[in-house]
């Protein structure tokens, strides 16, 4: 299946992209998408314990199963305010 990946802030800089299109095996979770991304961009691996994710513009757990066409966003620790 096909998913869109969005990256923000330092994750975006480390990966050198804010939007990516990737093919994932059916039944992949957000965490699977993250792990594939770490394999591709090892520099983001430090965020594996602190990253949050949102699926289709809603906060979601990394265990969330993705569907074809989903947008999954990976968020480094936030610092608004």
């Amino acid at each position, binding site marked *: 299946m096909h998913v869109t990946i969005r990256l923000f802030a330092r994750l975006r800089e480390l990966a050198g992209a804010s939007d990516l299109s990737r093919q994932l095996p059916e039944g992949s979770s957000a965490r699977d998408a993250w792990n594939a991304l770490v394999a591709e961009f090892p520099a983001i691996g430090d965020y594996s314990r602190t990253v949050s994710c949102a699926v289709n513009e809603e906060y979601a757990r990394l265990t969330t199963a993705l569907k074809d066409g989903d947008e999954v966003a990976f968020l*480094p620790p936030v*610092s608004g*305010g």
Partner: protein
Amino acid sequence: MGAYAVTAGPLDPAAVAGLVARDGDGAVATFVGLVRDHNAGRRVLWLDYEAFEPLALKAFERIGDEAAAKWPDVAIAIHHRTGRVAIGEASVAIAAASPHRADAFAACRYAIERIKQIAPIWKHEHFEGGEVWIEGATADPSDERARQTALERACT
């Protein structure tokens, strides 16, 4: 602009306050976050704010709902700026109106604590000699311990 906004333009705290007050309200508490000229011993030049805008708006709405559940008479507005923000300029403006001041203060403080916990917004600090992404909390709206911390800081 409505009660919740993410905007690249300068914030107008008075306008944000004007969004919340109703004739039955006796108190409006506001909070404005300003860009400081120093941070952690560094001389700050400016901040660049990045937001995941649609999710940030939902986070603000969620914070407003959480506040309304805790303080039913309170109305809240939250505006957050993105892009380059100079020293002394406002990065966030929050207003909370209520018939009574205790609730207005508490809800306003709660809102800024929750924004720092769960709003998908990042500050990129440009200081004399370099730049750094500021990273605070792992955003998790369902983290009840974080919510409890925000309530405690709101003095409830």
